[in-house]
Structure formats: structure tokens, C-alpha cells
């Protein structure tokens, strides 16, 4: 691949393009192709569980992950604050700001 082409297809734009196309296809499959029909229960049950499995993995990697190691740092205090906010049924924005605020404060001290 030429250098210029490599630059044009920087990794960010590649991800934007691939994920954009993939998402449009995922959302369009049902409405365009299947009309009112439904998926058989087995594949539907598996696809339904993709989001919880993936989101849990994202929580873990974002909370204790670093480059090929586990790091337990101030982020955990932020997560604790987020758990409290979620339990209090706070809006999403409050949950996120609480986590950031507590973590930032702990790093300052």
C-alpha cells in the first residue's frame, strides 16, 4: 500500500467507515428483508445476549485494563461512585459525571 493511501485510510477513518456500514446493515436487515417475520428463537436468544456480554467486557477493560496488564487505581473509586448513582436511579449523565469527578479528585489528592 502506498504511503499516501495509508495516510488517507488512517485507522480512525477505517473504523468509522467499517462500523458505519456494519451498523447500517444490522439495522436495515429486518426492516428491508424480513418485513414482519421474526427470527427463530435460538439465534434470537443468542444475539440478545451479545450486548450484556460485550458491555460487561468493556466495563472490565475500561476499569482495570491497561496495556497487557491489570491495573487497580483511582478508576475503581469512580466506578464505586457510579454504582451508587445507578442504585439511586440517577440519570446517565449524573452517573458518568460522578465517576469522572470522584476519579479526578482522587488523582488530585
Amino acid at each position, binding site marked *: 500500500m502506498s504511503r499516501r493511501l495509508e495516510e488517507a485510510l488512517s485507522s480512525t*477513518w477505517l*473504523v468509522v467507515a467499517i462500523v458505519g456500514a456494519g451498523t447500517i446493515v*444490522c439495522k436495515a436487515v429486518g426492516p428491508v428483508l424480513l418485513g414482519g417475520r421474526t427470527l427463530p428463537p435460538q439465534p434470537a436468544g443468542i444475539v440478545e445476549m451479545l450486548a*450484556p456480554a460485550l458491555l460487561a467486557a468493556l466495563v472490565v477493560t*475500561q476499569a482495570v485494563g491497561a*496495556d497487557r496488564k491489570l491495573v487497580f487505581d483511582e478508576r475503581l473509586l469512580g466506578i464505586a461512585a457510579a454504582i451508587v448513582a445507578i442504585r439511586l436511579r440517577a440519570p446517565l449523565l449524573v452517573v458518568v459525571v460522578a465517576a469522572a469527578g470522584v476519579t479526578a479528585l482522587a488523582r488530585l489528592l
Partner: protein
Amino acid sequence: MGTLASVVMSATTFAGSAQFAAASVLSAAGSVGAAATAAILLNARYVPIGISVASVLRGGPLRRLLEGQLVVDESWAFSRRRDGTFDRGVLIGAGLVLYTCWVTGTAAGALGGEALGDPESLGLDAAFAALFLALLVLQIHSRRAVVAALVGGTIAFALVPFTAPGVPIIAATAGCLVGWRKR
């Protein structure tokens, strides 16, 4: 990520969790393949969601395709009636409002974000973890979903020290196999 890339992504990939997932893998120096795979797998749930609302969308293939893009977790949940059918007006209306706010909000955030400074000193890494956690709680409707989340989280935890960034997230999709239902 760059302002333009962020806004283009919000306009085409109208699904926050997948966008954050891709950004999270990329910022951890994960590969393009890992970032895109994680994000698209996360959005695979829109296949059954799209099928569930297909009967209230109208028009030819192109119009149905465009209307289908307006479906996100929130507009889907708002428009769902107790009997399991969907309110077309709420689905399309909420989708349009959310889409407009999402794209303009992304532009504002991308333009204003540079002024904020070091993301770590602001605790933004923890903020992303909290965001994923809050999104996860929204997806937990059954005991099965709890098990899928525990399996996925455990796999990711075990693999982080041994694999390239992004790989633990993709491997964690094995947790979805708990969705297998016996006939």
C-alpha cells in the same frame, strides 16, 4: 479521534455504545480489526430489534432502510407498548429527536473537548467505564442476561494481561452462548 471523524461516525453509526466501544479499543492502541469487530458485534442486537419493529415501518426498501436507522435502544424502548407492539409515531419521532441531539451534541463535544485538557486528570477513563456499566444495567432484563454479563466480564478480566487490546472484548462475546434456548 478528530472532530470530523466523530461527527461522521455519529451520523452514520447512530448507536452510542458501539461508538464508545470502538473509541475505547482504538485509544488503548488496539487494532482497526479489533475496534470494528467489537463495535459491530455490539450492534448485532439491532438485527433482532430491527426485525421486531419491521411491521410498523413503511414504504419501499430505501425508505424502510432509512426509517430503520432511527431505531436505537431508547426510541425502541419508548415506543414499545405493553402488548409488545410498537407505536410508529413515537418510534420515528423519538428517533428523529435523538438523532438530531446526538449529532449536534457530538459536534459540540468534539469542538469543545480540545479545551478540556488531559483526559486522565479529568477522570474520563473512569467515566467511560461508568457509562458502559450504566448501559449494561439497561440491558439486564433477565437472569440469563446477568449470566451472560458475568461470563463476558470474567473472560475479559482473564485475557487482559495476555492479549492485545480489543481481543478480550471480542473473546467475551462467548458469553452470549448462554442465550441458547432449548426447543
